[in-house]
């Protein structure tokens, strides 16, 4: 019997980067991620975290194996279909360069919904709500470069969440942040995970970020070496 609450299913996932010396970045990963999970992917540098997240997000194709998103094999999609799939199903937060510099905070948060062609009322309501959660109403009309790194990442999370995707992928979202900003960002992610039941999958090196995760998947040399739940820390 399959658990219908599973959002992401990885089957024997392999990724080899071709080159003069081929690099086996991911070597046979099988994982399941359920709805509403708040999971950290951890491991030493070069263990394959980014590679894994990129394959889950349809940014890169696996050499072998399958990525199923709600039972749909995304490796079967064409590049054009994949862009559309990402637009409607996945939220992304990168380490940096998340925001469009020529758009204001408000326009950045609205961007994905605009691409989806949603109506203005819906977009405005959602953006207003998120600005409220971020506590950045006063900054909604300024451009990202006038924000701190922490504020920029918070806007990026809001942008990823705005369209209520099936899950949000965040590759080291706190890598460039100080501890206070890291804490604020994690708090925002946790709040949204709790209140909107949004599934988060993020990679990190940071022990404090790992501490907040409900589940930790540890990779080493392209393989899963540990996969454990942990109690919520109060």
């Amino acid at each position, binding site marked *: 019997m399959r658990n219908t609450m599973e959002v992401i299913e990885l089957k024997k996932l392999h990724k080899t980067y071709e080159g003069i010396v081929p690099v086996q970045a991911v070597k046979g990963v099988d994982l399941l991620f359920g709805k509403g999970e708040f999971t950290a992917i951890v491991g030493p540098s070069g263990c394959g975290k980014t590679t894994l997240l990129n394959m889950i*997000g349809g940014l*890169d194709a696996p050499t072998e194996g399958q990525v199923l998103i709600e039972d749909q094999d995304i490796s079967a999609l064409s590049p*054009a279909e994949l862009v*559309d799939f990402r*637009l409607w199903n996945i939220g992304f937060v990168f380490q940096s360069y998340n925001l469009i510099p*020529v758009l204001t905070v408000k326009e950045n948060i609205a961007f994905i919904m605009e*691409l989806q062609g949603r109506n203005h009322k819906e977009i405005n309501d959602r953006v207003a709500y998120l600005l409220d959660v971020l506590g950045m109403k006063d900054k909604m009309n300024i451009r990202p470069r006038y924000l701190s790194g922490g504020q920029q990442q918070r806007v990026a999370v809001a*942008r990823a969440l705005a369209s209520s995707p099936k899950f949000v992928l965040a590759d080291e979202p706190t890598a460039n942040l100080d501890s206070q900003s890291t804490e604020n960002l994690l708090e925002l992610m946790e709040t949204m995970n709790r209140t909107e039941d949004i599934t988060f999958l993020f990679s990190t090196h940071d022990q404090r970020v790992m501490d907040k995760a409900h589940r930790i998947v540890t990779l080493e040399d392209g393989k899963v070496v540990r996969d454990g739940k942990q109690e919520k820390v109060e």
Partner: protein
Amino acid sequence: MIAHIAWRNVWRNKLRSLVVISAIALGLWGGIFSYAFMQGMGEQQVYSGIHTETGHIQLNEPKFLQNYDLQRHIEQSERVEEQIRQLPGVKGVCDRIELTAMTSTAYASRGIMLNGIDPQIYNGVSDLHEYLTEGNFFEVDNGGVNPIVIGQALAEKLHTDLSSRLVVTLQDYRGEISYASFKLVGIYRLHNTEFNEQMAFVRKQDLQKILRLPKGYVSTVSVLLDDTKQTKVIQGQIAKLFPNLQVQSWDELSPMLRMMSGTMTQMSLIFVFIILLALAFGIINTMLMAVMDRTREIGMLLSVGMNQKKIFTMIVLETLFLSLTGALAGLLMSIATVNYLGTSGVNLTAIAEGINALGYSERVYPQLDPGFAPQFAVMVIMIALLSSLFPAMRAIHLKPAEAVRGE
């Protein structure tokens, strides 16, 4: 929204964009101005050509112009002229006797075209009398002598001057050679050197006597219109009225004038196009730099779901905005310059000798016809679209995973 982003992207790297925009504006300023200059020059040439040399329309017996055979004259010319005068849009009609002749002085002899005219009527159709540098255009009675008016160039070639006598050798109506003596009463100077050297004018009644022509003999009828644009229409009407006569318009009579009015402007339009083509490389370079600078951003856009079509559109729009801003600036600068110089004119006296030989006048009034703007817009948009293709292709071929990975 994409247009909004594209427009703001143009102004992201202000310096870089301003450099290209200035290049486009200046390049086109030069291009459009020379276009306007050529057009002004051509237009002026056509106007003065029509008003001194050809008139708008000319009628002859069909084979007359082949060898100016005196036998081939226009029958019942008075009736023909009267009927043409009745047509709306006709400003004036005059006739003349045209034949080839030789003229000589003690120094030299030259082949000329002798035009027997009725000065009063001729002046209603031609401005030639305004181009006299010496003497008069048959206005003063010379007593018994036959007066003649020639161009300055011919006068110089013949080493003659005002009040001198010219001997003209010609074939009369019956084909016999005869000689006649004329007194030089006027010298004109036209911009067209060829005309200057060949066209000599005498009174019709004198020529009739010398050649022993029948009464009412006319070889050529010239028609001047109110509006040059009406030429083809009225030419058609006249041709219908007189199917037995050859009816030619100014551009058929003078291929030189036709070239002035058409080819020159076409050529300078090509010149503008070549400038644009050169500018295209600048545009391509700038846009490629813009795309390369934004590799990670474009990767991010692709990642979060902005599809290739939209990214392509964004880059194309950026290129269009950039180019159109420059083109608009160039066009406005040109219009301002043309407006200013269109009234005061550009003085070319420094090189006027050479210019005259080509049939141009010393002062040129540049002008832009209203039809230019749309033609120009189409060219700019074409070039901009063409220039945007390569950078836009580059942008959509970026791989999201590689583009977002930090270096």
